[in-house]
């Protein structure tokens, strides 16, 4: 059993979910429709909850306390895809948040689709605790995907402006997609029985028809790898992640190990 491989995989999963859940949580109280603010927050909580589950699995494998793993590791040790650390838009949640709902919906759809495929692969993982966790989490992804695809359709077919903004979101997300499919230092094997190519195949098969349905030009198949120097799965991150981690750990770092 390749424990190092399982651990590396778990960091990717945990860091992906924590970073995207954190970005999602910045929308709280600021979403464009009050009922949607509530719904979107549940999705954010699901992601943070999944992250907590993965960090606990890492704790069980001897990596340290879950909260320390979540709050203390510097950017160079993080294994989330760069797509997820990108800001929601100009400004910050405290100052002039001009967050981009079009970008958010495309990012979330792209990620949750990838995550669902990754989880399906993991249900066959040789690492039993991970396989079990994946099966449970996968069921929660159903609502996420329904939510994101519904929104994608609404914005694509709503008004000329919403269509334009959604298209801009697609253009902004696309360059970062390769980094999502990178497995970093993890090699396909019994703990993760699929290759990045296969993930891209399955992801494309799901998403391309949706683009066709709404009459969006397909921007092209994502590469199964990040651009050089931009692979979050190898710890290559943007300054945005530094800012995110700074904020996220601000209180925790004043007394790590203290009870909060």
């Amino acid at each position, binding site marked *: 059993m390749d424990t190092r491989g399982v651990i590396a995989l778990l960091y990717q999963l945990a860091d992906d979910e924590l970073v995207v859940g954190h970005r999602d949580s910045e929308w709280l109280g600021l979403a464009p*429709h*009050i*009922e*949607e603010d*509530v*719904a979107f*927050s*549940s999705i954010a909580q699901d992601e943070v909850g999944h992250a907590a589950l993965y960090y606990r699995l890492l704790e069980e494998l001897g990596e340290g306390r879950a909260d320390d793993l979540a709050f203390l590791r510097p950017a160079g040790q993080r294994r989330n895809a760069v797509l997820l650390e990108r800001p929601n838009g100009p400004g910050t949640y405290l100052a002039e948040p001009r967050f981009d709902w079009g970008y958010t919906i495309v990012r979330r759809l792209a990620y949750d689709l990838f995550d669902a495929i990754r989880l399906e692969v993991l249900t066959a993982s040789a690492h039993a605790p991970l396989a079990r966790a994946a099966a449970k989490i996968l069921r929660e992804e159903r*609502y996420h995907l*329904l*939510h994101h695809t*519904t929104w994608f359709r*609404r914005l694509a077919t709503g008004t000329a402006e919403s269509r334009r903004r959604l298209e801009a979101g697609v253009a902004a997300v696309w360059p970062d997609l390769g980094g999502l499919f990178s497995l970093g230092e993890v090699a396909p094997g019994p703990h993760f029985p699929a290759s990045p190519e296969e993930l891209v195949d399955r992801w494309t098969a799901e998403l391309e028809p949706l683009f066709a349905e709404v009459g969006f030009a397909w921007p092209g198949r994502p590469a199964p790898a990040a651009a050089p120097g931009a692979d979050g799965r190898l710890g290559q991150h943007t300054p945005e992640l530094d800012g995110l981690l700074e904020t996220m750990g601000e209180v925790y770092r004043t007394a790590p190990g203290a009870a909060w």
Partner: protein
Amino acid sequence: MALGAHPRFRVYEIFVQKDHQSPHVWVGSVDAGSAEDAILLARESFLRRDPAVSIWAVEQSAIHRTDYADRDFFARETDKRYRTLAGYRAANAERWRKYRRELLDLERDFVRD
């Protein structure tokens, strides 16, 4: 603000069925653009802490309602016990007691021999 100055959401009344032994129950309403959206939103507006097996969304304008002021619509003034359990239980029980007494007497005769 003139009526119609802003685009208006439709209101969907939401009914939730918690399990297959239970009927759908009204839980509240959401502003949404369509019934499909309403259901998606309703799941988190109303079911964050409760299990369910089904959600119905019904456009508010599709609901036909009685008038609260029309109390006579619901009037039940005369004795309706003829169609209730209470209307029969006591009288039947009294009659069964008579048969039970006879039954007991028969048993005594047999037992005594």
